[in-house]
Each structure stands twice: as structure tokens, then as C-alpha cells.
């Protein structure tokens, strides 16, 4: 053996002053105004969902028929609805259901979509062709139709909403994951795994998955925005969250007939709430996307 370069002469691993890619993303998120604004809005609504009921002025479910349809005033900041419930209290607490259902639906979509994307991207060929065609067909059906069918089959419940939205978004996430996996599949570390006789499961989940986390995170945050909108829409149509929840979509649905009578406050504040939450999530998603693509 020749004494090529002595181990003692080797430099310490070259990480002086450099952070890992995930830490890099984290710090760049902290510097992103877009992300921080979005995060602020979302955190506000999460706080309302968690603690709102302790400091709202009225019980959001308590009716007060005598004061029905009162316009905004010092007593009822956002006015009252048809049966005299305080709109302000309802808007604050109304984030609770949507903020459980939408994230759970997104989580389901992410888990199912990631598994499908890994599968189709890894096996390629015929498996990919068949599954991809099915997913495309599935994506062509509007969520509402899927929802109708599911409700007929499963009945209305939060679980139904989660399953419907989760499964309709899964193919979209699968598509993103699949294209990332197809690119990874070409890298030599996959061939190296085959030359160790690794199982397909190991190669997909231990070798490839950690490298496709960034696009999955980006897609997930984007999908969360759509999921919130989808939950609100389903609730508005009566297929989603059920009364007596003070849910925003549901409130708009039961009050929008009142707008013609000039009782705008029964709808406006719920609509604004949905809009701010969706915008907040989208800003955060933009920030995440930017941080990964810097």
C-alpha cells in the first residue's frame, strides 16, 4: 500500500458555515414576507378555532329571536342572523370544522397521492400506464359529482367530506410525485440499490422518497388552499359540514337568501373569513414554493 494522502491530511468535512438544504429552506422561509404574512393569517384562524369560544361575547349557537337580523352595532359587531345568533361569535368559532376537515383531507390526499406517485413512477411501463389512465379519468370527474355519489353511499358526515376531497386530490399529488420520481429513477443510486438486491419497497420508500419530499411539501400546501375552498363549497351545497355547526360555508348557505332583503351582514363576514383563510394558505404556499426553488 502506498501512503497516498494520509487520513490526517484530510480536511474536516467541508461544512464550515454551510447549512443543510432543509435548514436553508427553513431560514429562507423566515426571511420571506409572503410566507410570514400567510402564516400569520392562518395562525390567527387556528387560534380562533382553538380558543375562540372562551372569549367570544355570545354563545355562537344561542338563538335570540327578538334580536333576529339586527344590523351591526356596538352590541353585535357583525349583527345577528335570522334567529338572532351573534354573527361575530359565529365567524370566530366557525373556523373549527373547516380547519379540521380540510387539513385531514389534504393529509389523506398526500399520503395516497405519494404512494400512487411512487408506485407509478417507480414501476413505469404497464403499471404506470394503467394507473395513470384511471387517475386521469378520475380527475376529469368534478368533485361535486364524486361528493354526491359518496353521500348516497356513505351518508353526510365529516368523514365523507374528508374521504371525498382526499381522494379527489390524491391523483393531482400523485402526478407531481410521479414526475419527481421519474427523474430520480434515472439517477445511479437507484441502479446501485438494484445491485444490492433491494426490494422495490425499500427502493421506493427508503431510497427515493426522502429525495422527493420538497415537491410533495409544495404541492401539499397548495392543495390545502384548494381543500379549504372545496370544504366551504360542499358545506354551502349542503353536502359538507352539517348544522348546527357555525361553519362559514354552511352559514352562507342558510343566509344567502337574506341578501335580497338587505341583510348583507349575515353573509359578508363569513365570506370574508373564507377568503382570508384561503389567501393566507396560498401566501404560505407561495412562500414554501419560493423557498424550495431559490
Amino acid at each position, binding site marked *: *500500500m*502506498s*501512503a*497516498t*494522502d*494520509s*487520513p490526517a*491530511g*484530510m*480536511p*474536516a*468535512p*467541508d*461544512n*464550515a*458555515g*454551510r447549512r*443543510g*438544504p432543509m435548514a436553508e429552506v427553513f431560514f429562507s422561509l423566515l426571511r420571506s414576507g409572503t410566507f410570514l404574512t400567510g402564516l400569520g393569517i392562518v395562525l390567527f384562524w387556528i387560534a380562533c378555532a382553538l380558543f375562540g369560544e372562551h372569549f367570544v361575547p355570545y354563545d355562537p349557537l344561542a338563538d335570540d329571536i327578538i334580536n333576529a337580523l339586527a344590523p351591526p352595532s356596538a352590541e353585535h359587531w357583525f349583527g345577528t342572523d335570522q334567529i338572532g345568533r351573534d354573527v361575530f361569535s359565529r365567524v370566530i368559532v366557525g373556523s373549527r370544522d373547516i380547519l379540521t376537515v380540510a387539513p385531514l383531507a389534504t393529509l389523506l390526499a398526500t399520503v395516497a397521492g405519494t404512494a400512487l406517485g411512487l408506485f407509478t413512477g417507480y414501476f413505469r411501463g404497464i403499471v404506470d400506464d394503467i394507473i395513470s389512465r384511471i387517475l386521469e379519468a378520475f380527475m376529469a370527474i368534478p368533485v361535486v359529482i364524486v361528493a354526491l355519489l359518496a353521500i348516497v353511499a356513505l351518508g353526510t358526515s365529516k368523514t365523507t367530506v374528508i374521504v371525498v376531497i382526499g381522494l379527489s386530490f390524491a391523483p393531482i399529488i400523485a402526478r407531481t410525485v410521479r414526475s419527481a420520481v421519474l427523474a430520480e429513477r434515472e*439517477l*445511479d*443510486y437507484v*441502479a*446501485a440499490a*438494484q*445491485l*444490492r*438486491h*433491494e426490494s422495490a419497497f425499500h427502493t421506493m420508500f427508503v*431510497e427515493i422518497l*426522502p*429525495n422527493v419530499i420538497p415537491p410533495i411539501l409544495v404541492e401539499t400546501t397548495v392543495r390545502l388552499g384548494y381543500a379549504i375552498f372545496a370544504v366551504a363549497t360542499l358545506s354551502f351545497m349542503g353536502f359538507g359540514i352539517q348544522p348546527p355547526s357555525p361553519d362559514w360555508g354552511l352559514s352562507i348557505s342558510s343566509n344567502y337568501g337574506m341578501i335580497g332583503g338587505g341583510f348583507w351582514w349575515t353573509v359578508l363576514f363569513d365570506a370574508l373569513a373564507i377568503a382570508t383563510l384561503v389567501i393566507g394558505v396560498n401566501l404560505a404556499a407561495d412562500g414554501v414554493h419560493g423557498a424550495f426553488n431559490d
Partner: protein
Amino acid sequence: MTEKAGNALELSDLSVAYRVAGRNRAVLRNLNLTIGQGEAYGLVGESGCGKSTVALSVVRYLPRNGSITGGAISLDGQDVMKLDGEALRRARAESVSMVYQDPGKALNPSLRIGRQLTEIFELGGIAGQAATDRAIAMLNRVRISDPASVMQRYPHQLSGGMQQRVAIAMALANDPTMLILDEPTTGLDATVEAEVLDLIALLRQELSASILFISHNLAVVSKMCDRVGVLYAGMLVEEGSTQDVFNDPRHPYTVALLRCLPRGGQRKDQGRLDTIPGFLPGIGADIKGCAFADRCALATDRCRSELPPLYDLGGRLSRCHYHEQAQALPRATPSDVAAVAKAKSEPVLHVEGLNKTYASHGHALRAVKDVSVSLRPGETLGLVGESGSGKTTFARLLLGLVPPDEGGSIRLEGKVLAPRLDNRTDDQIKAMQIVFQNPDSALNRSHSIRHLISRALKRLAGLRGAALQARLDELIRSVRLTDRHLAVKPRQLSGGLKQRVAIARAFAGEPRIVVCDEPTSALDVSVQAAILNLLADLQSKEDVSYIFISHDLGVVRYLSDQIAVLYLGRIMELGPSEAVFSGPHHPYTEALLSAVPKLDQTETSRIRLDGEIPSATHPPPGCVFQTRCPRKIGAICETQEPPLAEAEPGHSIRCHIPYAELARLQKPAMQAEPA
């Protein structure tokens, strides 16, 4: 050289720093450098020494965290630092052009070549047909034979060499006075590299542009440049005419760099390559005395405390206190090897009639055609040929990563291997492993080095627990890594260290055969020498056989016992390394050998290979090499494919010219070749 006032580029006391983790770290330190009008100046040094930073500073294209912390840059007498936005833009557009290593950087993948070229002229106010005509003229100028069709294509539809030529065409579009080439041929194979270099040399005469040519390949620089500067830790350590610096170096670093190259037909059984111990100081390192002192065997206390000035040795400079002794630098690596007399044993690998046909746009693409070779234990089979000649496909067929066509056979230690990896036994799989060209692709970036090697030990050697730990320690020591390297992720290691990890992984299961696919082509000469020594040491210790693929013929020659020369998937020549290199050889081998840029510039009768390798979907009839063969003898070459005929025992050539005739034809060139 022209008088001072007319210098094309002048850097005076240039200092550049990159801001990392809140601190400015020096990369270039008081660099002085002058390039005269029409001069070609070469800048060499290991990667990380600051070569690219010089190039980027000239056009003020430093990355966001980079800044010029002192000194001045003047281009054609114009102070670059004082240019305002508009003037700077104009200088970039009109007087300086850059070509990078990766032509992908210059070309937009989503636009057709034509669009990208005409755009440059449109910015200069020339539009429509006039712009198209100019674009076609540009492509003609860089010797692209069918410019109209190339204009219609997207970058990915062109080979690497073509892309680089288009990038050069774009760089020349505005008749720059200064052309900066940063490693323009590093990613190309030997013949394409030779073509691109010839092109640059030709254009130089036509254009009178001054050139700053950056490369870590000393031979390439020696071919291209009038003067060279050797950069080390952001300082010039030696400068002078190309002849002087490469043939009579006066700085220990230059001496050491030149010794890393396998030269004059050096072979593994004649000794190890010299290496440079240690590493380049990191960026921002506090350098008191000589920057090279930690790695220099001549260093004294004076070197460590007193920064050597650039001693003027009459028309050349050296930054060494002991420049007159530089060539007495002791070797860092003992050259001697215990030469083991090999008993002629049965082949470990025997490949018979291997074929691989791909379907490409409805045509059959014969990537590998009728290849038969065998390999003995402890020996190396070198595979050479231009890119596209089927080297990597052949390697993948052996490994079972792609299945071959029906018919041929691969025998490992006498047993026929299943065509597909899935059907091979664990023992067969672990017996044949690979070191890939690009460790960034081969090492999973999410896993630590410990995980990468342990997993291989677990799967390939079946080890667990304490036994695994013990073998892991032994293995990393045999590739000269330390415990410190185990905890980190691949991206925290340099290219050479990553390649050691890849080698450790390939050796985990005590393989019989390791395929090395261009394992050093991305590495500096100093690191390359260390890796080649390591491979040679492991081979003599473990009696492992290599299939070694490289387009660097000096490297192949150093490591190989047998050589197979491939062209369009066929073996054109096969034989003992010495016989193939010393000749008489196949006309294709002859052309490959003469395409290699050599350090000593005694240019003998050089043979050119014109044009690109033909498409494997439509190989030429008769001899597949006939379209480019400089020795073609006539109609027979166009109609009949020559057989691979044994010329001497163990040495076969696929050519219609009889062996004795080849010997006669090649005689003058062979005599001129240095021993």
C-alpha cells in the same frame, strides 16, 4: 507581446471575497495578471483555487454573495469597476464573451437553436432574414455542417460537442475582443474535445480576440495557450510561457501537478502515480507564509512565516523561496510496487456474442453488436471509444441492469449468468459491482456516508452488529477515509472523497469484478492520481478484476492489461494494452490516440476524425468506420464488413488492411511517439 497600454485585460491587486455565514472570506488575494492583445492565456489549478471566480469578476458576474474587495480590472484600458449599469451591459454585450463548461448554461432548453441565435442579432438591431443569415453564418463558422437543420432543433437534440459549438457560436456572435473560456471541454470525450480545441485554435487566428482559457487539464492548456498562470488559493504561484512552465516548472506545486499525470505510457505494475498530499486551503483561510507550505515537501520555517514574493526569473515568475530547487521536490507517494507475478488462471468473466438492440423511432439501434471478451482475475479490461460507442451499455448488460438480446452469454467463473438482475443469485450480484462516473448521482443525497456503506455491507456481505462495524472500519480505512467522514451527507464531501465512498461501497461484498465507468473524469489531476493509485492497490491486494471505461487514454493505459476499442457497438480492436497502444493499431485507435492533447508539444503527424460518430440506427454499410477512416482503401470498405481477425496471438483488429501493411503505414508516427 504588445506594450502595456494596449493590454486586453489587466487585473491589478484584485481581491475577491464570498460572504458565507456572515463573514467575508477571501477567494482571490491581490491577483496581478495581464493578457496582451491577441494573446491566449491559460489559467490552471485544482478546482476551488479561484479560476472561475477570476472569470466571473472580469464581467462582474459574481454571485450575489461575492464582492470585489480591492484592486482594479481593466478591459482594453477601460476600468470595469467604474462602468455604470448601461456601460457594463454594453461591455458584456460587445466586448467580452464567456463559454462555460456546461453548454446547458448558455442555451435555453425550451427554445430552438435558431431562435436563440437570431435573438442575439435582434438585440443588436438586426432582424428578420438578415438575422437568420447571420445566424447561419455563425454556425458555419463553428464548422457545423448542416446549419439550417441545426437551427430547427432544440438543445437536447444535439450532442454535447454540438451544443458546445453552438455555445461558442453564440459567444462569438458579437465579435468580442475578449473571449473567456471556463473549462469548455471538460465534459467532452477525447475526440470531441480535440475537435472543439481545434475549432478554438482556428477561430483565434480568424478573430484576433484575446483569450482567457481556464482548465484543470494541463495538456489542454498547453495545446491552446501562449502563456500560463498557475493559481493556488487565489494567488498566482507561477507564470510564464507555456513551454517554460510545463517543461521546466519552477514552483513545487506546478511540479507536483505535472507528476500526477500518467505519462509516457506509465503502467500500474511499473509504479504508482505521484500525488499531492493534503488539500487546498479552504476559502477565507488565514494564510501567513507560503499558501502551499502544508503540502510542500520542501517547506522550511521560512516558508511558513514569510509569504514568498513573485520572484522574477527573467520573463517568468515563481512564488517560491526555493524556486531553483523546485524540481527536486521529493515524491509524495513511493513509486515502487511489489510486482506480483500472476499465474495465468481461468478467466473470471467470459462474454460471448453479446448484443443489445434498442428500438428508436421505429428503427433498430444496435448499441452493442456481437461483443466477445474475457477477463482474468486481477486484470483490467479497458474500454475506450467515443461517447455513443456503446461502452456504458456494455457495462450495464454485464451488470444485468438492462437485458441483452437473446443469444449471447455472460459467464461468471464458468457459470452462465441470467440476463436480468432479478434472476441472478445474491452471490452473483455481489460478485459484480460498479463505480459510477458521477458520485452525485450514485450516492443517495439523503443518506449519511455511514448509512450508504453499512447498507452495502449488510446486503452484500450479510453482516450485522459488531461484525459490520469492524468491517466498516476496515473498509473506510482501505479507501483512506476516516470516522469523521461517516456522519456527513455526500454533499459535504469533495468530489474525490465522494468517489472514495463509492469505491468503498462497491468493494463491500468482496466483488470479483468491479466496473469503473469514467470514475475520475470529473476529478482534478491530483485527486485522479490518488483514486487511480487506490484502484491499483485494491486490485493487487484483493485480486479483483476491473472493467475500466474512460475517454482519457493515458488513464486507461495506466490501469489496463487488456484494451477493447469500441465503435458503434462493435469491437474494432482487442488486445493486450501494450500491443494496442504501441501499435500497429486499427485506424480508429490510431485516430483516437493522435487526438489526445499532449503536454510536450512536439506535434507529430496528427490524424483528424471529421464529423460526429454516425447514428447507430443507420450504421454505414461495409466497415462502420469507413465514413471517417483516414486510411480507407476503397470499395471493399464500403461493401464488406471486415471480420475481427487475430493479427498476432491475443491481438485482434477489425480492418481490411493486412496487419503488416498497417505496420508499414503507421511506422513514422509510431517512431515519433515518446516511449
